[in-house]
């Protein structure tokens, strides 16, 4: 039940991000300056934390989505759905730890 709630909440959040992301990327069609000015406002620690949250949501939604596919199409999927959720959580940690180390290191040190 909570995985279902999590899937919906992360899905909606990712969808609204996607709308904004296409709009900001569309600025490359306006001018290099317009795009760079807007992207520069993303390059600060606060936005880096929001990006980390976004990626956390995407990675959960992706792995839980694969779990939903297994439950629907794999004959033993429904029987092992709870164990599969632990698999989702485990894979999520496995991906998020190196991602956070790399992304937050980049965001909080060096760069421009």
């Amino acid at each position: 039940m909570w995985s279902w709630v999590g899937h919906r909440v992360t899905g909606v959040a990712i969808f609204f991000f996607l709308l904004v992301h296409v709009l900001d990327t569309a600025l490359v069609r306006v001018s290099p300056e317009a795009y760079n000015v807007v992207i520069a406002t993303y390059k600060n620690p606060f936005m880096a934390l929001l990006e980390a949250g976004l990626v956390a949501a995407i990675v959960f939604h992706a792995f839980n989505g694969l779990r939903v596919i297994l439950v629907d199409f794999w004959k033993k999927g429904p029987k092992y759905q709870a164990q599969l959720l632990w698999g989702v959580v485990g894979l999520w940690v496995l991906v998020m730890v190196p991602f956070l180390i790399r992304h937050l290191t980049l965001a909080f040190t060096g760069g421009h």
Partner: protein
Amino acid sequence: MAVTSEIQAPRSGRIAPKYTRHGSSRGNFEMLAWLFMRVSGLVLVVLVFGHLFVNLMVGEGVHAIDFGFVAGKWADPFWQIWDLAMLWLAMLHGTNGVRTIINDYADKDGTRFWLKSVLYAATAVIIVLGTLVIFTFDPCPPNAAAELLPSFCPAP
């Protein structure tokens, strides 16, 4: 005297319209939408993870993202097609997901209609805009400051 009775095979005859599982007007749209979520989701895992890895993890990561970075990627048809597929699949996957949520939580017919109208309008605008940007994009726009452009642009 034995009583004879005719035993009908179950579900042998025509099913009354009110018991058919697919409505006549909707066809099997909902089944196709359900299948699309699984197929597009599978493809999106690859496309989105690749997108995040190349843009955030490689090289300078997020610091490298500027006009020159995007121009360098979209000068290559490989990334144009990658991003185009990601745009269409992610928008349709997300739109169908939000459509499901609207159907679940908006009780009034009018509310559902308006929410879905706004949703479909936003989806159409974003897909058309994104597609046009990918295909009409010029990595070396004239009159732009040379230091903002990718290195392969001819010197002004």
